């Protein structure tokens, strides 16, 4: 039984983060989906669809509202998740990571940092995302621990295929590992993608 629920995204009314069972989909941009959801995708109902390990981010096209489309999307998404293999997800590690990081920083991790007088900024460049601590955290010896401990811990919880590319005190560069993500998916029973392995 597939269970999903919708969560509001702070500051943006067009997007809804749909929490779905973990491991069904790989992280990236959705190009194709089965059933009614796929139709809506083709029709341009959505301006963008990103997936992370346990959630699907759906942006409604300008002019459309979730109050009218919510119920339909809910059923369609649920139905489509019954066939995870019919989805075509293009890797987009930078964007997904950027989204998830921003989400976390808007929540408890960010609150923690800000409550210590610090600030945090993210910057995406291609497939990597760089996270930088500032403010009071700039010169704090525990800054590295904070980044590593809490942020990475929570990020990894959301994106099991998280990889550290580089670290430098208050700065952390991260990306998502494609191969790792494929392995994660395979371990959940889906057939491996044709092509390189």
């Amino acid at each position: 039984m597939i269970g999903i629920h919708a969560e509001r995204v702070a500051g943006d009314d067009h997007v809804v983060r749909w929490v779905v069972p973990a491991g069904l989909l790989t992280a990236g941009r959705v190009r194709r989906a089965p059933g009614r959801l796929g139709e809506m995708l083709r029709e341009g109902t959505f301006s963008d669809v990103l997936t992370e390990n346990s959630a699907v981010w759906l942006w409604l096209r300008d002019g459309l509202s979730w109050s009218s489309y919510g119920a339909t999307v809910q059923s369609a998404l649920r139905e489509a998740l019954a066939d995870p293999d019919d989805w075509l997800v293009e890797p987009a590690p930078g964007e997904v990571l950027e989204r998830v990081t921003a989400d976390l920083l808007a929540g408890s991790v960010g609150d923690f940092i800000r409550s210590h007088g610090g600030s945090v900024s993210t910057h995406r460049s291609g497939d990597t995302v760089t996270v930088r601590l500032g403010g009071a955290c700039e010169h704090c010896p525990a800054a590295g621990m904070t980044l590593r401990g809490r942020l990475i811990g929570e990020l990894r919880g959301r994106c099991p295929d998280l990889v550290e590319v580089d670290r430098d005190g208050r700065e952390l560069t991260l990306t998502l590992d494609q191969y790792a993500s494929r392995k994660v998916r395979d371990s959940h029973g889906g057939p491996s993608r044709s092509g390189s392995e």
Partner: protein
Amino acid sequence: MTADHCGGAGGVSTLETGLTRFAVVGSPNSGKTTLFNALTGLHAKTGNYPGVTVARYEGTTRLGEHETVVVEDLPGTYSLDPISPDEQIVVDVLDTDHHNERVDVPDAMLVTLNATTLRRSLGLLAQLQQTGLPTCVVLTFTDDLARRNGKLDIPSFTRALGVPVVTVVAGHRDGLADLRHVMSRLDSWTQPVVSPPTDPAEVTGWVDSVLDASGYQLPEIDKRTHRIDSVVLHPVIGTVIFLLTMFAFFQTIFTVAAPLQGYVESFFGWLGGLVADHVHIGWLSAFLSQAVIGGVGSVLVFVPQIALLFVLIALLEGTGYLARAAFLMDRVMARAGLEGRAFVALLSSFACAIPGIMATRSLPSAKDRLATMMGAPLMTCSARLPVYILLVSLLLPGDAKVGWFNARGVVMFALYLFGALSAMLTAALFKKITARGGPMLPFYMEMPPYQVPRWRNVISEVWTATSAFLRKVTSIILATTVVLWVLLNLPMRSESEMTAAGVDTGNAAAVSAYVIDHSYAASVGKAVQPVFEPLGFDWRINIGILSSLAAREVFVATLGQVAAAEDPEQPAQALRQMTVQDGPHAGRTLFDAPTIAALLVFFMYALQCMSTVAVLRRESGSWKWPAVAFTYMFVLAWVLAFVARTVVAALV
């Protein structure tokens, strides 16, 4: 019900006073009533929803300095697919589509969710959010959840639901303060960006997803409850405990209440004395002492017992034992076509049918409710006691024995037993008659964990119930006693008239006897004589029966007055000497065995309580059922009294 309700506070309608309305909604056993009581204190108004027999609880609460809001406690419900009048009310009240004009739609909902039964409770929340009303979840029993090693991450839970969530633990003030704070910021309540699904298949998935995201860990079984239940619900020990509890219940109601009743009686005796000393206008003095003090006094004398009954029931319910009692009795009740909870209602009727009839509200099935209401007045209520005691003492000498047992005691026990059996049989019969057509309601009963009852709840329930009883009963009985007094004492007779008739005007008892003998009431008594003739009653007994329509215990006092007894409260001696005045049996002792038997049986079955009639009317929603009850009970009483008379006459 539309899902796209206009955003924001969406105020649909408010009271004339313009106050914001909050409705407290939730399933039974979710701490809803505790929350309501905590918010509104004892300032709740109770009434009925228009046209139905469902109690309505409304109160107000202060949210800080200047803001007062109305809080309404909606009946507990498991679903917005109603199967009972209670649940239908919840649907009607939350009807934002305005198909129903009878009740005000609230401005917002406070949904109580029991943290230990979240899997089921969230299903109700999903349905409630279809109304589109601003919602705030009040999470209760989180202390129980922790105690039983369950877990829930509140911030994730809040994010997953998309509505404000406030944790309130009964007995702790902080949760309430937080709740009031949230309630005062109604305009900023978030709504879920997408409403939960409606389809049953999708809802369970939604619930699972939300609980998963909130790190929900199922609480372990409540070990304390489990241990207690293995004793209390044990086939043998449990039954014994149950019987002991019932015994203790009765003992308390009768023995513990007795001294309290004594105090009330002395108080009214003192009050009567005051009137006699200070009011010198003859008729006014009589009016005050007999009609007003006598009437009100006869009601208030039962209040200690009634209040004690309410306290016991509230305690049993608060601990959770009542559900166990209903569980143990369900099979027996099922044979009568009823269910375990009807047992509780009938049990309450042992002191007075009124609390029993009110207790039928706990029965989900309207047909069960009606059947139980029709049977409840047959349970031997306390008001019958003075009548039984008087009649039995006329019938049997105090030292008569049946085997080893005191004969009077045996007869009293038999009266109680027959009352209970008749009540069950009648309820079963009514259920059979009304059960034609319509689907049978499935029986289910939640077994809540044992708790220490919350004192605030107990006090509040007892207060509400007792004050409702007092208000209703006092007004009705007072009215009836006054009317009867008037009928019994008019027309007034002048001294000359009485002396001419040979009455010693110095003897108060003789004077009052003469007045009564020639009063309007006497005319009525003589007029209905043909009806009661076959039972062996004469017009004086008829007056007593008519007066007992107000309240059964009034029979004793009225008969005392009619018999010109020196002390109307102890008329036994005078009554023993009464003889039939005219007709074919003139000269026969009026209170002979067959007549007493007939009277006893008559009182067992007849509906002689206007208060009960009034409560039946309110609880069943129309005059039809009280009329049916009155009629069938009168017929039953007459027929069985006749049978009793014939049988006893043959035996004696």
